[in-house]
């Protein structure tokens, strides 16, 4: 028993860092095979960094509050999409369009977040699976709203957004009018690498906010709640409310992040853009070395870079190796799921090992002649 657990410990230690290492290896192997030009690669990475970083940052706060990986961030994404449907229907273009979309998304995500938080408070200890199911459930509601109510109950003006049948939104909404308008703002070009300064600045600002937030009373309370709800409650912290707030914040941030994400894409798949986003963001964060109960801003950036480099390389590499483009596609998805699975397993085993008691000490005490106080 003792040996076994200590062995597990060693294994776990390796495991904890293995994920980023593994990725570095994969990438190191792929790059020469694929032979992309560094400029191309850098450009891609910078684009994806600016595209995804904000979304992933939205995951940090629930982790801080001990609610694990917030699969419910999808709700924020949906809110953002609804907002964008409106702005593009009202023909609001460029930066104003983006700002407006963000503003509209806030109340929607706040409400969704509130709902999600309430449910999660009812499912303490099962937050992740629950938030994961919530995202599916809400996806249904989202479809109900977007596919049936929009155009029939909720006014939609333009036919290029409505389905020909007269209600419901087309499966893809064209965002060319706001496309990259944030990225192009004060964009600079360093050695052929295009850097969307405005977006980067927003992300940096967000990081600062999070750092600041950690140092607020609320932040402190969240950490306390995250580590031990009962103690926090005994100290007079309103546990439920604190957890609720953390989810609401996360959802709202996810909404804003999704707007940034979509303005870069310049085109929105109405019914699928959000379905995968949560999964990929979480995977990226975990690749960055985060765990279910501990994540830092550093993890976010390392994660985005490693994960997305893999994402860029995988299909090409797959094609080069097996002569089949699709393999790479599947591979990167497999990796995403794999990473999440591994992270979850490591988290659970850790929890269990912590529970496992002090037997060794007692045995030791025995050998030393039994005179001891634990």
């Amino acid at each position, binding site marked *: 028993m003792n040996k076994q657990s200590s062995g597990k410990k060693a294994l776990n230690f390796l495991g904890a860092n293995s994920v980023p290492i593994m990725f570095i290896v994969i990438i190191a192997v792929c790059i020469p095979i694929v032979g992309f030009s560094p400029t191309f690669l850098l450009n891609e990475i910078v684009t994806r960094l600016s595209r995804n970083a904000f979304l992933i940052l939205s995951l940090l706060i629930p982790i801080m509050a001990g609610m694990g990986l917030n699969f419910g961030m999808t709700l924020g994404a949906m809110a953002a999409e609804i907002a964008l449907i409106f702005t593009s229907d009202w023909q609001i273009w460029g930066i104003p369009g983006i700002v407006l979309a963000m503003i509209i998304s806030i109340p929607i995500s706040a409400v969704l977040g509130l709902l999600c938080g309430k449910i999660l408070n009812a499912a303490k200890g099962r937050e992740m699976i629950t938030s994961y199911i919530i995202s599916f459930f809400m996806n249904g509601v989202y479809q109900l709203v977007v596919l049936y109510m929009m155009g029939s109950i909720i006014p939609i003006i333009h036919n290029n957004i409505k389905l020909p049948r007269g209600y419901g939104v087309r499966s893809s909404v064209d965002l060319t009018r706001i496309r990259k308008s944030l990225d192009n703002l004060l964009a600079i070009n360093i050695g052929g690498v295009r850097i969307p300064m405005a977006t980067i600045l927003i992300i940096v600002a967000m990081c600062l906010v999070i750092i600041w937030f950690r140092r*607020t009373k609320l932040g402190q309370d969240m950490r306390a709640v995250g580590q031990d709800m009962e*103690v926090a409650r005994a100290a007079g912290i309103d546990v439920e409310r604190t957890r609720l707030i953390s989810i609401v914040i996360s959802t709202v941030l996810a909404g804003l992040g999704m707007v940034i994400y979509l303005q870069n894409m310049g085109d929105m798949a109405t019914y699928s853009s959000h379905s995968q986003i949560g999964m990929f963001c979480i995977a990226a964060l975990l690749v960055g070395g985060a765990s279910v109960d501990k994540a830092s801003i550093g993890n976010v950036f390392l994660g985005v870079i490693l994960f997305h480099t893999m994402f860029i390389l995988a299909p090409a590499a797959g094609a080069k190796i097996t002569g089949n483009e699709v393999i790479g596609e599947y591979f990167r998805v497999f990796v995403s799921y794999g990473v999440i699975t591994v992270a979850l397993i490591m988290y659970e085993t850790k929890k269990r090992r912590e529970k496992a008691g002090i037997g060794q000490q*007692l045995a030791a005490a025995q050998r030393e002649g039994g005179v001891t106080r634990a």
Partner: protein
Amino acid sequence: MSNQTPLLEMKSIRKDFFGNQVLEDINLTLNEGEVLGLVGENGAGKSTLMKILFGMNEIRETGGYEGDILLNGEKVTFATPFEALEHGIGMVHQEFSLIPGFTARENILLNREPQKKSVMAQIFGERMNTLDRKAMEQKADQAIEKMGVEIDGQMVISDMPVGHKQFTEIARELSKDQLKLLILDEPTAVLTEQEALALLDSIRSMSAQGIAVIFITHRLQEILNVCDTVAVMRDGMLVQHVAAAETNISEITRWMVGRSVIMERKNTRPVPETRTIMKIDRLWVDMPGETVRDVSLEIREGEILGIGGLAGQGKLGIPNGIMGLYTAGGTVTFDGEEIPLNQPRRCLDRQLAFVSEDRRGVGLLLDESLEWNIAFPAMQIHNQFLKPLLGGLIKWRDEKAIGEVTRKYIDELQIRCISSKQRAKELSGGNQQKVCLAKAFALKPRFLFVSEPTRGIDVGAKALVLEALRNFNQESGITIVMISSELEELRQICDRVAIVSGGRIAGILPATEPSEEFGALMVSQVV
């Protein structure tokens, strides 16, 4: 001491949990800066009294209490612990309530952190204020200062030795400026000798600063060292309240365990001088809260051996360890052969049986029928109540046989239920306990561990359970080891009683010895 209005007055406090009286007419006064030592066996009512004083929820949930509490002369009633805190009463509980990942400082000021105003707070509320780390540092360190024991403010709780956690808790109470009265519930239980001494000093310094302290412990010497007065409780009554200077350990122990009416022992048979059937050698058990450190014990065939001792001293760990429910080490030989530890099955195969103290957690399948509960172990271990089908290829559950045996035990033990199919969780505590016994009896064991068989069940059921055990022992000559916190109960039905203290056997005496002897053993080497 001084004749100004006392800091705290408790006037004729009474409390009953659903009819059975746990506190009767307690009167207690405490002056500013006075240190009161509160002693008594488990279940004497110490903690209940403190809970009342501290306004704990469970008191209200169980119908409140009678009598008055006066602080500085005026009557107070606390709806929640927080109100008690506001009135300057602090309490350090036995189990820590600390955030593992926080530093001592953060814990000391948990949810009372000094803050810096920030703009966001205007919009999103006070909680958006940033913490004033510098002020926190000062405030926390002051508290540590006040306590007079050096602990590292920056150290994270999870890296701390257990003693320091204890001190962090005390410091947290001291950091509350309004603190006038501090309740310490067995604070030294987890401390090393030196730490304990340090704590005593800090208690002295607190009282010097005018803070009154109620000090609950089983280490009587500490009481004598540090306290001004000693209050002894027994069976929910305050039997003595004297100046510490005027008494001594043996006197206190007598007060603690001495019964006003000595019950006559029904068990009058001589201690059997039979062969040793079980030999326990240097057993350690890692059972949280009931750690067994080094127990060696010999049990004679056909006897009823009682194991007593104060809570948390490890008496419960012994059966749980031997039966493999918690990680254990050492050697246990039964009937000449060694039993491998940490493998419940092997014990059961050797016809050992165990009635756990944790009825709902370990003892019962709450959601299943009585039939299942009673028949299950026998079915699994001895293949009873099974019909072989296809030439023994399939072992089919024999509902009929199960029903019969269940009804048999329902009659024998007078289990009150509507049918043998009723779900276990629908029975009352006493009947659930009987089901647990039936389960054990159905195994036809040669050796039976019974742990806290009468905990939390009404008087009638108590008598029945004890009766059943004695009969089982006498009729079928089964060796029984009974673990219980109630000394008198042990003395009633056991032949010999071993007292566990500090995870070790403090001594074994025939049940005929007077209670005082046992009492002395109980507190001999408590940790």
